[in-house]
């Protein structure tokens, strides 16, 4: 166990699984970097260095740079998975999903059902999401609600380096198609991460904090912000439970319902666009199945229904903040 960055945790999970299972391979754009070029190989290791060092260890046959052809290589991952290997594809930014979505929506996600259970498709798509780096409208989206909507895919959103390593290991070992969301603002976040491989099961929410007053369900980077908000609220005597679902598909409905049954109050924090997002999904779940336990309205903390703005002066208002989470939770307690 030692302190590692989110980036390093992901790199380790990839490395360990590649070592463990020779059928695991990686494919993406510049996940090596320098392919065909006269200078350094492994020059990039992905656009933010997450896969650095893997090509030298495993070679170009298992760490595969591709032309800029998302439909082809995401589809190739699906085809490979259906025929005996375990690809881990990198979609550089989830914003690019529009160039390859068919291979996820209509192919990978539906194979097993359409074929009557006669295939498994153990592929992982690692992808970068989220706002905060002034990457503007086409490089800052979350979009995991879209994947959560699609039956046949599993959706994983790690909230810390520890979570990232354990969940990615599980994703690679999992027999279903998985999309794994890495927040671009979190790569340098540090935390304790065991050196040895471990898995965190899907569909089991993580209780990052317990309190009887308000349940806060938060996703990905929002988990940290929710805990900070809870810290502040604790000073005012308001005690929050902060739940990290870890995976939105499958979703640990029981953990959420159990917590709301205890607190009677729910705030859901989702960095995704507000319409039909995971926040509304969880709210609807609770409004249907734990209605009687509710002491007040379910509050959603999400960005506005706008594209992500470029200017930091705007982006700061776009992203849910600790203050908004805190004030929203407090409002449920009758506070200002």
């Amino acid at each position: 166990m030692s302190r590692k960055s989110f980036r390093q945790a992901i790199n380790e999970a990839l490395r360990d699984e590649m070592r463990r299972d020779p059928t695991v391979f990686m494919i993406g754009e510049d996940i090596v970097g320098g392919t065909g070029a006269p200078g350094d190989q492994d020059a990039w290791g992905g656009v933010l260095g997450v896969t650095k060092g893997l090509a030298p260890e495993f070679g170009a046959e298992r760490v595969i740079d591709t032309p800029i052809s998302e439909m082809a290589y995401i589809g190739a991952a699906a085809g490979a998975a259906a025929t005996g290997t375990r690809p881990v594809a990198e979609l550089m930014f989830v914003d690019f999903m529009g160039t390859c979505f068919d291979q996820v929506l209509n192919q990978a996600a539906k194979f097993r059902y359409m074929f009557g259970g006669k295939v498994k498709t153990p592929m992982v798509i690692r992808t970068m999401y989220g706002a905060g780096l002034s990457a503007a409208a086409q490089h800052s989206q979350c979009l995991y609600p879209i994947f959560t909507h699609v039956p046949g895919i599993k959706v994983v959103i790690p909230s810390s380096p520890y979570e990232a390593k354990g969940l990615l290991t599980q994703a690679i070992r999992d027999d279903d198609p998985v999309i794994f969301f890495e927040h671009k603002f979190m790569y340098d976040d540090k935390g304790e991460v065991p050196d040895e491989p471990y898995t965190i099961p899907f569909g089991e929410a993580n209780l990052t904090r317990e309190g009887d007053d308000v349940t806060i369900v938060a996703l990905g980077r929002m988990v940290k912000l929710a805990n900070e908000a809870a810290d502040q609220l604790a000073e005012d005597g308001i005690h929050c439970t902060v739940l990290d679902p870890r995976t939105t598909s499958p979703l640990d409905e029981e953990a959420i319902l159990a917590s709301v049954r205890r607190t009677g109050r729910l705030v859901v924090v989702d960095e995704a666009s507000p319409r039909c997002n995971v926040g509304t999904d969880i709210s609807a779940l609770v409004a249907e199945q734990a209605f009687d336990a509710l002491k007040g309205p379910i509050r959603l903390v999400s960005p506005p229904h706008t594209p992500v703005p470029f200017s930091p002066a705007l982006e700061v208002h776009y992203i849910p903040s600790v203050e908004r989470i805190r004030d929203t939770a407090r409002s449920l307690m009758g506070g200002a």
Partner: protein
Amino acid sequence: MHLARDTLLTAYRSMATIRAFEEKVHEVFARGEIPGFAHLYAGEEASGVGICLHLNDADYITSTHRGHGHAIAKGCDVPAMMAELYGKRTGLCLGKGGSMHIADLDKGMMGANGIVGGGPPLACGAAFSARMLNTNGVVVAFLGDGSINEGSTMEAMNMAKVFNLPVIFAIEDNEYAQATATNWSVAGSMTKRAAGFDIPTTLVDGFDFFDVHQAAGEAIDKARKGEGPQLLHIKLYRYYGHFEGDATTYRGKGEMDKVKETKDCMVRFRADLTAKHDIAEADLEKIDAEIAALIEQSVQDARQAESPREADLHTDVYVSY
């Protein structure tokens, strides 16, 4: 290439099975027995069979919306296919997929595909698997002429070439994509398109089993030997509408009748077999009779078969969830 008698009879059986299957589907579809959409392969039999005859179970194919012929040629179980079209629990995919999603991975059939251009990326993936697992396998991506205009197809062609993948792009050019003429919609030509990726093209007479078989054999051999992707441009024709229900008024007057009369791949193959390959009419008639019985039995069975149960709705979404 010399072909053994057995091989020829196998080819004949496969082609005749496809023809009989499709004609029967046409008939029972018109009677309302088969739900959904059906795109028939009748007329194109020499292509699927001439190609798949070179493949073994470790080789894969990807298919299209017009996939029955590919499935039969690759060895999928015919009664189970018919049951699938009828939406029955005994179907090849438990009735969950239907005509557009028939698949049997164990036979190397990666699925009919409702998405034009859906197959080629998958074919590249299977080729990566083959390489990584050292199976020496090749992959044939069956494609309609119209699919050459899909970005996915062209991306896959580039990718196959860049990685020197053993993928054969088998373009079944029946002159139309739905109601649109391919001459009009494809700028350049199939050969030029492939040359844009340095992929060699062989022009193939899809009405002639022997031409398909010969060309496919060479292309598959090259791909298997590591010479990279190949493209077969197979000229042929479909006899029924784009889908069942299509009045095909976009066709030229008498166009189809002429093709049927003068070029039909079954007629030609039969004639070649009896005239040049020393196979007796009676042998073929016996096969025809067996096929007729098989198809008839398939339909009877499919009609009688149990429907999927309500609980089946929820299974097979995930391996575990």
